């Protein structure tokens, strides 16, 4: 098991945002976490990344409890992230953004290899590599955010709302890329509001509601569940 979260409680001031979340991600999987606005999805990501300190519970990555590890050590531990809202560095070029993604990597050769891999996944980024990231389209910025997360050669990649605000063709492309990245051996934890697409690419799924996991199981089963269909997939 690569990531195991046990009974995780996280508070935002007086708000009890996560109330005992348990979640597991096995090596090589694509697992998705779906849920509506305010369900606690981003809080969970922030807890994993150490941006907010959990009040109780364990986050075990690769056999080690990382719930008290500072945020900047996460990339070194092997977790890459494409944060919600992309957050690329707008005034840095595409190339520089990728190099920042490889900040913890020492060997130049490995940085070059990772960069080639990213440019092969997203040829558009290669074309625009000298362009300032802030001038890219939303979809291109998302590619960059994913590519940047891959630059540290992570074992687990967290993708927080990669489809947010993207045109439909970009959404399809991003999800195709997620499959491709996974096929290259990277484990993916996908946090999405777009439940439809997320369930299609994932092997397993968790549904987060008001800070607790209300449902979990095989993605196909979750997608077939009448409650999920009604609440998240827009089918009556």
């Amino acid at each position, binding site marked *: 098991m690569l990531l195991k979260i046990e009974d995780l409680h996280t508070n935002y001031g007086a708000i009890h945002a996560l109330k005992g979340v348990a979640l597991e991600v096995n090596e090589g999987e694509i697992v998705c976490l779906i849920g509506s606005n305010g369900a606690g999805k981003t809080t969970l990501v922030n807890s994993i*990344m150490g*941006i907010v300190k959990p009040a109780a519970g364990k986050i075990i990555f690769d056999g080690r409890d990382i719930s008290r590890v500072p*945020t*900047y*050590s*996460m*990339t*070194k531990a092997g977790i890459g*992230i494409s*944060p919600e809202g992309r*957050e*690329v*560095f*707008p*005034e*840095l070029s595409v190339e*520089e953004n990728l*190099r*920042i*993604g490889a*900040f*913890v990597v020492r060997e130049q050769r490995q940085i070059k290899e990772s960069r080639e891999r990213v440019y092969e996944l997203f040829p558009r980024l*290669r*074309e625009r*590599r*000298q*362009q*300032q990231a802030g001038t890219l389209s939303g979809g291109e910025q998302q590619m960059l955010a994913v590519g*940047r997360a891959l630059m*540290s050669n992570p074992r687990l990649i967290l993708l927080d709302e990669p489809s947010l605000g993207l045109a439909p063709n970009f959404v399809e492309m991003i999800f195709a890329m997620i499959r491709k990245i996974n096929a290259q051996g990277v484990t993916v934890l996908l946090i999405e509001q777009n439940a439809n697409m997320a369930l299609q690419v994932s092997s397993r799924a968790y549904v987060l509601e008001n800070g607790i996991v209300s449902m979990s199981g095989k993605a196909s089963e979750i997608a077939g569940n009448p409650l999920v269909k009604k609440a998240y997939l827009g089918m009556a």
Partner: protein
Amino acid sequence: MDKTGKKWKLSSFESFAWRNAKLLWIILTVFLLMLPFVFRNPYFLTVVAKIGCYIILGLGLNLLTGYTGLVSLGHAGFVAIGAYTASLLSVKAGCPFFPSMLAGMLAAALIGALMGLPTLRVTGTYLSIITLGFGEIVKMVLMNWQSVTNGTLGVKNIPKPQIFGWKLTTANHGMYFLILFMIVLISLFCRSLMRSKTGRALRAIREDEMASTMMGIPVTAYKILAFVLSAVICALGGALYASLIGYIDPNTFNFDVSTLILSIVILGGMGTLRGIYVGAIVLIAFPELSRSLMKYRFVLYGAILVLMMRFRPSGILGWRSSLPYRLSGNVKKKLRKEADA
């Protein structure tokens, strides 16, 4: 220059500069080397040397404010530490200029690291207020620690630097060339720093601190590093300035100096080198040029700053982003192939 022929733009000037970079570099070098021999007016040369000192101070603050995005309102404090340490060592202990200057830089580095510590807890405006307090504290210490600093009487007869027994003065242009050399050295340092991994990390912190942390950058350590480097460069500038003027007192390094350095950085163009040169030239030369306007000159000075922020918020030379992108070799090749097909 402009194809539409409507409006002359600064960006067209920059494209021109890019195309003729080599030629312009040669002209500039010759101009700077000839300057003290062509214009022999000592008053003019003193102003030029002062501009040079402020370029160094601007470059120092630019590392912190322009590249790392931390606004300091108390950088005169670092200038004072550099100037006082160097001057006191030369005057009281008879230490030569260059070791004294290095001592001043070291002192500023230590205090810069201490100043960087608040960045653990506070950011933005709050940090600026802390630096403001720092500048005032330094001034107060210099005023009241009389046994060491001579208090408000200041330090007099600060010796000029010597290289192999040759005294560098304003009259023999030694000071001019020393300051010019330091500017070139610091500019090269800043340039290579910004192209390095460290520089990228600093710029990433300016853009998005949270994302930088998530990419594995130990943000606090880098902010402290930015404070230290910035303090060291400003201390160097301070030591040169003290030696140039020959007399310093606590009021030489008051809040006005801090704001002047910050104005140079902002007016010239934050996060660029050429912006700092232009900012220093404009802001130091303007009060001198407008002496005939007497008491109205600072009204005009203020008005220029306000207008600048209204019409060129990114600074006089901070317009790089409005230029068309320069394509990489690969892309050019590709485009050519497509055009052929």
